[in-house]
């Protein structure tokens, strides 16, 4: 069992999830509210990592973060070093890769809030931001849990993007899924089996907690 890789993966998944919840909330609020073509374009762009091969995404991220692009040069100038093959680079990659898993549940959550409630709140004097904070957010709170669990699990399991922009540097960019790949390469099936079982158990427990919570809420509302 590669505990360094496990710790690194949990750190990466936690950071990615926290960043994504902050980032995804305004994006989802915009997509859920707006009928405009711009919202549909944004939604399609955000959903792209769902269908794109991770290596394609990883390749472009690697290029974008490197010194051949303006953005990459700016980043290098600010940070003093390239983002590729660093832990921060992994976080950026994971955020892009897991974006749809955070945004789409939130869009569904926001859209499920009855518009007559938000409309009434506005007539009673609440500004759009207050309506969002006092009505939409609390009523869509379970979708935040869904978004967090999906983002976390998806980040733990990512492979292609991580390998493309992070490489396989022990303690810096070697995540648990890469560690499993290495163990299989070394024909160390017993170790790969142990690591994989830990991941299966973790993912199952997370989903179980999510669905158990949902069904108990359903009973309370019935």
């Amino acid at each position: 069992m590669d505990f360094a890789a496990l710790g690194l993966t949990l750190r990466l998944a936690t950071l990615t999830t926290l960043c994504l919840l902050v980032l995804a909330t305004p994006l989802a609020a915009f997509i859920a509210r707006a009928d405009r073509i711009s919202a549909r374009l944004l939604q399609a762009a955000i959903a792209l990592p769902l269908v794109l091969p991770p290596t394609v995404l990883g390749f472009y991220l690697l290029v974008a973060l490197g010194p051949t692009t303006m953005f990459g040069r700016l980043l290098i100038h600010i940070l003093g070093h390239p983002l590729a093959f660093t832990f921060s680079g992994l976080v950026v990659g994971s955020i892009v890769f897991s974006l749809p898993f955070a945004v789409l549940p939130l869009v569904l959550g926001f859209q499920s809030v009855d518009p007559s409630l938000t409309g009434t709140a506005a007539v009673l004097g609440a500004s759009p931001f207050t309506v969002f904070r006092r009505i939409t957010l609390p009523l869509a709170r379970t979708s935040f849990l869904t978004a967090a669990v999906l983002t976390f699990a998806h980040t733990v399991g990512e492979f292609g993007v991580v390998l493309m922009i992070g490489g396989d540097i022990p303690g810096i960019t070697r995540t648990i899924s890469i560690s499993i790949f290495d163990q299989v390469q070394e024909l160390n099936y017993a170790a790969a089996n142990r690591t994989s079982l830990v991941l299966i158990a973790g993912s199952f427990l997370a989903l179980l907690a999510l669905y158990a919570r949902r069904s108990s809420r359903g009973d309370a509302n019935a």
Partner: protein
Amino acid sequence: MPEIIWPHHELSVEATLSALHLQTSFSLHAPWTVIFGPSGSGKSSILRAACALIPKATVDFRRRTSDPPKFTTEDLQNGTVLGALVTWQSLTQRPTHLRALAYAPQHAALFPHLSAGDNIRFPSQVCQPPTKDSALVDDVLELFKLHSLADRMPTQLSGGERRRVALARAFAVPNCRLMLLDEPFTGLDRKLRDELLPRMQAWLAERKIPALSVTHDVDEALLLNADVIRLEDGRVIAQGPAQEVLAVERERLLQTLA
């Protein structure tokens, strides 16, 4: 010579709804105005349009902001009041929350995650600047006799109780300039309605807040002694005192009682 009565609000709405073309234009000048019409005639949509809740509606909505100038039709004929100015404020371009309206929608629409009391406190918490003064909320709880229900969640309330909370929440809007009530007494038993109605009227009169309500109940319109706007198929077919506009319905009602 009669004194001229100035309207306090003017509203015109044009909208194409699923099965109805709504085209109305009217002035509000009475303390309480009732839009009366059969179901499906577009009553609720007019209120929603005034709140800017119907995105595709063409609305013109304005409010008188000066005291009504005092003169008679005779003065007008003599030309002695040429300088008198009435100032109006257009609400059409204003976002919903800055229109100084209060609204009790037809299906209560209580915020399900807030207790009855917190629903009623909501308007005073979100208004700008927020008011710390709880006197208004206390007054409203007293007016609708909701003190004992304040801690209940909306799911723990009966239909009639929910309706009362929705009315109370509208009455608890600070600095409200027009009260919009969609079928305010539907689901309340007659005894409670007869008790609440004059209290609500007195409460609004004391604070000089005009009301615009929607009903299909002749009795209610007569009881309110309101100015009635009669709506049919999305158009205004009459406006005037309840006794006149609803004379036919009143006769029918009296006959069934006799």
